[in-house]
């Protein structure tokens, strides 16, 4: 009797703990998905380093910030953080011991996430192997090194509020709005910043220059934003990194697709598209080129730029920019060929497009070593003039300046 009771008790406990384990596992899985949606890994991992171990440098005009280690290491990570401390970091930008974060950490977006989603992210992070990694100290100059100053910044620019669905909108719209404004923190790059480095509330998603790349206008304006994209094109761009004739995600946005967006469900990507297509149109920034197509005939009198295009580019991109090798190589219709400064164009020529998960026909080698500044300027100018309408040209100095930009 006694022993059977014990046995029964033991079984019940085992069943209970199995149940708890399954619950934990579900919570961790949910947290993993949300951590992907919030793209935590991007800022908390140095290239080639341990995921989430921190140390990425953010160069600001007044010094450098380093992202912290958010693995559950007790000494160098967040292993000794309580739930409340983690919540306060994501909702209020105040970390353990009352340290105030700088808004390079997008708590002004994450604050929209409900408590249980934040705790799910914590559960996921705490399920990872602790990594011992002490990140460098921030090097901000006075007065920007005074963390308490962020108290006043927060008073003015931060609302500690959760996401409130708009009952007049569809469920998909609300889901999209939540993902874009909350965990996805799209505005952190795509919304211009004001004098105090806060997101400009009057120009949401109107585009911005970030880490030397154009984070284009993604408002619903058809000419300057994504208003002319179909929902399917947006989903393709977000989930696969390209929408032929509309955009190819490269540089930092390529990383966002790679680390974050491609892990989201199709329903969530469609929800994001639904929301983005209804945002307030902002008519500024780089304009899409008119879809007048360039001629498919080789251009034989375009000088050095045309010769280089013939040799190095036309094989994949085609003379009409339609992409011989793959629709991903489509150039016509891209903002990148219509930005008179050639910002992303030169970045891609210099860095290539080579994320390892991309298929062979979606990759592009870099031309940084193959050509000199004057040659890259010539081919860049040719591309702008052949496929875009700004008539802009680039100089060797423009290329030299871009060479210095590593994208981090």
């Amino acid at each position, binding site marked *: 009797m006694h022993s059977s009771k014990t046995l029964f008790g033991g079984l019940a406990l085992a069943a209970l703990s199995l149940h708890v384990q399954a619950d934990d596992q579900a919570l961790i899985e949910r947290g993993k998905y949300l951590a992907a949606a919030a793209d935590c890994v991007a800022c908390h991992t140095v290239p080639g380093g341990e995921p989430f171990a921190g140390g990425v440098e953010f160069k600001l005009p007044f010094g450098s910030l380093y992202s912290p280690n958010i693995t559950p290491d007790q000494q160098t990570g967040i292993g000794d953080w309580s739930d409340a401390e983690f919540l306060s970091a994501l909702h209020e930008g105040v970390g353990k011991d009352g340290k105030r974060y700088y808004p390079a950490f997008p708590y002004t977006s994450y604050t929209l996430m409900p408590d249980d989603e934040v705790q799910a992210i914590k559960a996921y992070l705490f399920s990872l192997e602790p990594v011992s990694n002490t990140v460098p100290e921030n090097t901000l100059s006075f007065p920007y090194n005074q963390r308490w100053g962020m108290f006043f910044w927060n008073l003015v620019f931060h609302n500690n509020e959760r996401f409130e669905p708009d009952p007049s909108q569809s469920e998909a719209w609300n889901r999209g709005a939540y993902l874009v404004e909350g965990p996805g923190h799209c505005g952190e790059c795509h919304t211009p910043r004001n004098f105090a480095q806060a997101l400009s509330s009057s120009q949401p998603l109107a585009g911005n220059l970030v880490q030397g790349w154009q984070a284009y206008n993604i408002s619903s304006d058809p000419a300057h934003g994504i208003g002319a994209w179909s929902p399917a094109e947006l989903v393709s761009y977000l989930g696969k990194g390209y929408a032929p004739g509309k955009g190819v995600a490269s540089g930092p946005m390529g990383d966002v697709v790679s680390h974050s967006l491609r892990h989201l469900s199709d329903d969530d990507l469609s929800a994001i598209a639904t929301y983005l297509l209804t945002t307030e149109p902002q008519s500024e920034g780089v304009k899409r080129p008119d879809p007048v197509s360039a001629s498919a005939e080789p251009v034989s*009198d375009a000088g050095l730029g045309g010769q280089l295009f013939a040799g*190095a580019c036309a*094989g*994949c991109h085609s003379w009409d920019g339609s992409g011989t*090798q793959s629709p991903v190589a489509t150039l016509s219709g891209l903002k990148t060929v219509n930005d008179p400064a050639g910002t992303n164009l030169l970045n891609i020529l210099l860095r290539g497009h080579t994320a390892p998960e991309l298929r*062979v*026909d979606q990759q592009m*080698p870099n031309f940084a070593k193959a050509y000199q500044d004057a040659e890259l300027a010539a081919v860049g100018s040719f591309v702008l003039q052949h496929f875009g309408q700004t008539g802009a040209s680039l100089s060797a100095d423009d290329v030299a300046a871009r060479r210095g930009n590593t994208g981090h």
Partner: protein
Amino acid sequence: MIQLSVNGTQHQLDVPDDMPLLWVVRDVLGLTGTKFGCGIAQCGACTVHLDGEAVRSCVLPVSAAAGRAVTTIEAVGQSALGAQVQQAWLDHEVVQCGYCQSGQIMSATALLQRQPAPSDAEIDAGMAGNLCRCATYTRIRAAIRDVDAGGAA
């Protein structure tokens, strides 16, 4: 399983979707006339035709060629134009070491298909992605002009 038509023959191939067509053609089908040069679409040695258009097979996933007609150097001579191009190549003794030449012939045939009477500048533009380290460019140009003179199209 991928259904691939190469030189008029249908193949059922058990290869990864993203395997470059060049690998399939050379290593799986054993058609080694198509050459590997750079692997990044910068030299043209691997040029084949996809529905008559010149493509770099080193950066074309085999799945992108499924359901379309692939023609390699082994079969280009079966079309009248392809045969004329090859004859012109022989007449002008274009080939030096030969490594780039299957790609050159594939590109030239596709060019002449599009533009039956290309000017020198058009030849240069149309053939510019095909490198030849033996620098046979002048003979390539002469041979292409000759195909036109022979009234291929």
